[in-house]
């Protein structure tokens, strides 16, 4: 899993403790960005302003194996302030070097982004043609990206030049002005040439440009996997426990239901029902109940997931994307089939016992 199609992501290291970065940036006060915050930006788009000097883009381009290098400027907008529509991650892009949303612009928008326009993520509220305001500057929504499950879903993309202009004018337009100068950037996204080892490029960047924090494309998936590992382990444990507990519980319920209906089943036998009919009646009834229960459980889980989606994202600090229709069908079908299997297995013995009951004895005992 890469970030916006990049093979390698170059971020500023903790600049407050890094002199070389300070030289590159020229304004140490803006190096407030911590590496974990960069992760937060990428994963959940927690709005943050990240800065370092744009000249490194050219230096990165000179490194062997680098195909494209796209600078980006990360600006966190202000919450609950009149100068900003809301708290968002605004990302400034260079249209000439960008390879992240540029392909989307070409295919979907059919034209380059213009000055004063913004392209928003799928999770940002706003329709094409309406306006958003960042640091007192108004932008027109030119397009809306497809959901990605990543931080970019709640990000807004503007042109770098607009970002610099917005920063420059923020002193008079915004409640809290931005301290960003022309040429400053937050990250460089690298696309390596085909057949090039990404690790080699990452090491070269690290060597060539000291003070950078390198994120490789598999870093995010590894990070998400490691975060999910514990959660999934717990969930699998709970599932196994529930499954184990449910079996004897369902067997008990099936047995009680069959026992409760002894007289009814015996009457059916007296009317001419065969043993096979009684077995099928009890067994299919158990399967039906299990299927309905399983389906209700899955639907209830889906509803809870939908309702608590924002809470899950903020609690786990992980991106969330609903699976495709095909995956959903599989995700619904498998638990329902498991429920049916457990229900069927649990009803097997009660069904056999019911089919073998002595009809007259069962009727007489029920009369007492």
């Amino acid at each position, binding site marked *: 899993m890469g970030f916006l199609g990049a093979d390698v992501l170059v971020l500023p290291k903790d600049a407050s403790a890094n002199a070389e970065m300070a030289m590159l940036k020229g304004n140490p006060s803006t190096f407030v960005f911590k590496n974990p915050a960069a992760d937060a930006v990428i994963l959940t788009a927690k709005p943050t302003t990240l800065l370092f000097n744009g000249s490194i883009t050219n230096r990165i381009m000179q490194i062997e194996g680098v195909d494209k290098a796209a600078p980006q400027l990360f600006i966190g907008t202000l919450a609950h302030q009149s100068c900003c529509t809301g708290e968002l991650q605004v990302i400034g892009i260079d249209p000439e070097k960008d390879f992240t949303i540029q392909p989307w612009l070409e295919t979907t928008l059919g034209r380059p982004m213009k000055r004063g326009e913004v392209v928003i993520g799928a999770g940002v509220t706003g329709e094409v043609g309406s306006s958003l305001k960042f640091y007192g500057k108004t932008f027109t929504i030119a397009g809306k990206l497809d959901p990605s499950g990543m931080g970019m879903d709640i990000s807004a993309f503007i042109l770098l030049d607009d970002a610099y202009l917005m920063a420059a004018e923020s002193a008079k337009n915004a409640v809290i002005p931005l301290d960003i100068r022309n040429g400053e950037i937050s990250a460089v996204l690298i696309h390596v040439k085909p057949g090039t080892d990404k690790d080699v490029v990452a090491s070269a960047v690290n060597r060539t440009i000291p003070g950078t924090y390198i994120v490789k494309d598999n870093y995010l998936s590894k990070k998400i996997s490691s975060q999910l590992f514990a959660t999934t382990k717990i969930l699998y444990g709970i599932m196994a426990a529930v499954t184990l507990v449910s079996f004897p519980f369902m067997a008990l319920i099936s047995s009680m239901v069959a026992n409760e209906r002894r007289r009814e089943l015996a009457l059916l036998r007296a*009317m001419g029902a065969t043993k096979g009919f009684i077995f099928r009646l009890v067994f299919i009834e158990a399967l039906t109940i299990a299927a309905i229960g399983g389906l209700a459980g899955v639907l209830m889980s889906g509803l809870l997931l939908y309702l608590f989606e924002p809470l899950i994202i903020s609690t786990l600090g992980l991106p969330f994307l609903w699976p495709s229709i095909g995956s959903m069908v599989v995700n619904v079908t498998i638990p329902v089939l498991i429920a049916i299997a457990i229900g069927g297995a649990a009803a097997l013995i009660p069904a056999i016992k019911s089919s073998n009951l002595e009809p007259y004895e069962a009727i007489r005992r029920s009369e007492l």
Partner: protein
Amino acid sequence: MIEARKITKRYIDGTNDIIAVNSANITVNKGDFILIIGRSGSGKSTLLSMLGGLTRPSEGSVLLEGADMGTLPDTRLSQIRAETFGFIFQFPGLIPTLTALDNVILPTLFCGNGIDSRKRAVNLLDSFGLADKLASYPSNLSGGEQKRVAIARSLINDPQVILADEPTGDLDVRTEKIIMDYIKDINKMGKTIIMVTHGPEMFIYANRVFNMENGMLSEVTGSYKT
């Protein structure tokens, strides 16, 4: 049409071997109204269940039109129960989630005699004075009405034999007479009735009476009709 030859039914109750019916012989002819009387626990209900193919005898044989029911497979025996016998129990035994009409139709599930089950059920309920109760659930019917639905149910597959196990046991005297009159009418229609009961009050309806005592069956002869 039914002949029981030295049928015995044994039960194991813990370590005790209980003989519920002991070497009973009985021949039932078509159109008979047979009354089997005896105290509680005398074995009369067990005998009835063996005659109706609900219980297989431990010893002896029950022949239906010459065929030994004890040796038949379950599917064939079930078919015989569906087509040849109609059961009436002391309790109505109606399915509470089904209407009176559906309760009457229920046994047709197991009988492939090709009858128009709904039409026949409506006619039966009508003949038992329940035309206005077709859509009623058992909980909305009186004890007598429920019993009449049960009798209608026992007749839906047009069986040759009706086996009634104390069908008036929990009814008041007036309702008891109504029910017995219905059963007698069924007998007059040519159906064979085998009924077990506690006391001798039903003698007037029967043409043959048997007494059951400690599992031993004996036919009562002479002037039992008072």
